[in-house]
């Protein structure tokens, strides 16, 4: 996933990674240390990549100006139209499940040029036909200021791209070893899968080496446990 994310980062862009996002942070660091050395990178809570000194307001104000070319969001539920639910499932006043809240996602999803949706698990209860509550809609009518929106969704099974014409997530590639059958069974909405099914290019030796070396060292400044548990060589 980190490597698939890394390949979406373009040199010279302004890229930001928010809270609780170690895998996007690893992907962005990998890009910055390889093909995107001139990217301007922000990683929350990373001493080398977080220059905001006037509270989170400074960060949100910066984002509201439309400064981010690439940002990362997730959701408790994600639907085929790219809608994100970070609020509740069920009756809002008596929910069956309450998520932490939308925070800035309903602004960042509009104002960051390209947003990559990420989830560390891919299951029918997460990738649903229709989210219970829309914290952040995948698309907007023309009378809403929206320079940005969903670009890709990257999971442990596949890469979706957001199709602007149909306003839906469509499968771009499956990761090596994942079959169409597995992907459909673990996705809660019907997939229109291309044949043959494109396969995500596997990680190269150079990408893996960098990920387990300099990326891990840098990532440890923001996510020490994750860097040690997941990226340390065994």
């Amino acid at each position, binding site marked *: 996933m980190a490597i698939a994310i890394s390949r979406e980062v373009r040199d010279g862009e302004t890229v930001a990674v928010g809270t609780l996002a170690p895998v996007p942070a690893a992907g962005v660091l990998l890009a910055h240390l390889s093909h995107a050395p001139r990217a301007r990178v922000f990683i929350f809570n990373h001493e080398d990549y977080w220059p*905001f000194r006037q509270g989170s*307001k400074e960060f949100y104000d910066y984002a509201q100006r439309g400064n981010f070319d690439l940002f990362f969001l997730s959701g408790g539920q994600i639907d085929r139209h790219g809608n994100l639910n970070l*609020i509740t499932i069920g009756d809002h006043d008596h929910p069956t499940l309450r998520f932490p809240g*939308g925070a800035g996602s309903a602004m960042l999803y*509009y104002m960051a040029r390209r947003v990559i949706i990420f989830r560390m698990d891919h299951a029918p209860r997460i990738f649903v036909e229709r989210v219970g509550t829309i914290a952040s809609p995948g698309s907007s009518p023309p*009378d*809403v200021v929206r320079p940005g929106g969903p670009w890709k969704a990257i999971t442990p099974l596949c890469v979706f791209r957001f199709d602007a014409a149909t306003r839906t997530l469509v499968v771009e590639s499956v990761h090596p070893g994942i079959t169409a059958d597995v992907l459909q069974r673990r996705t809660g909405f019907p997939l229109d899968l291309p044949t043959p099914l494109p396969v995500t290019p596997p990680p190269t030796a150079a990408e893996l080496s960098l990920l387990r070396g300099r990326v891990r060292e840098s990532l440890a400044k923001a996510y020490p446990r994750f860097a040690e548990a997941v990226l340390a060589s065994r």
Partner: protein
Amino acid sequence: MPVPGHVGSDYERLRPDFRVIRDPYAADKRVMLVPAIRPDVALVHAHLADTAGTLLLEEREDDALLAQASRVVIASAERIVPTDLIRRAPTGITLEGLHVTAVVEVPRGAHPTAVRGVYDIDERHLRAYMAAARDNATFKTYLDRYVFGPRAHDEYLDAVSRP
């Protein structure tokens, strides 16, 4: 105040106090307005404070904004210090005492969360809290032991230092 985005989300349905209007500066666009938050009381924890209520606050948080929005501001601080130590601090956000109602010295006052550069999150305690919060009976035990039991902060710190 206006906020970018949000239009078309379920915030429109769930928050009747959030209004969508025609953008007065762009007639073909709609924009969402949200009311200002006006707390009666804000509790903030500072790294340092002086006796005039000047605070040195964590630079990654919005405590200074919160304090300025609130009618009453009660600040706790790791240490009460002479003013010049706050003025010379290389990092952090300074808030003037005019925004602060009361200030009190409470070392380790952010426990079980962290004061960056002073002490870390008490992960063991937070895990115990999470386990206790799973049902009412264990949560009541937690509250009795750590919230209602201790009569003052030093007794709280004593309670949380025991396994």
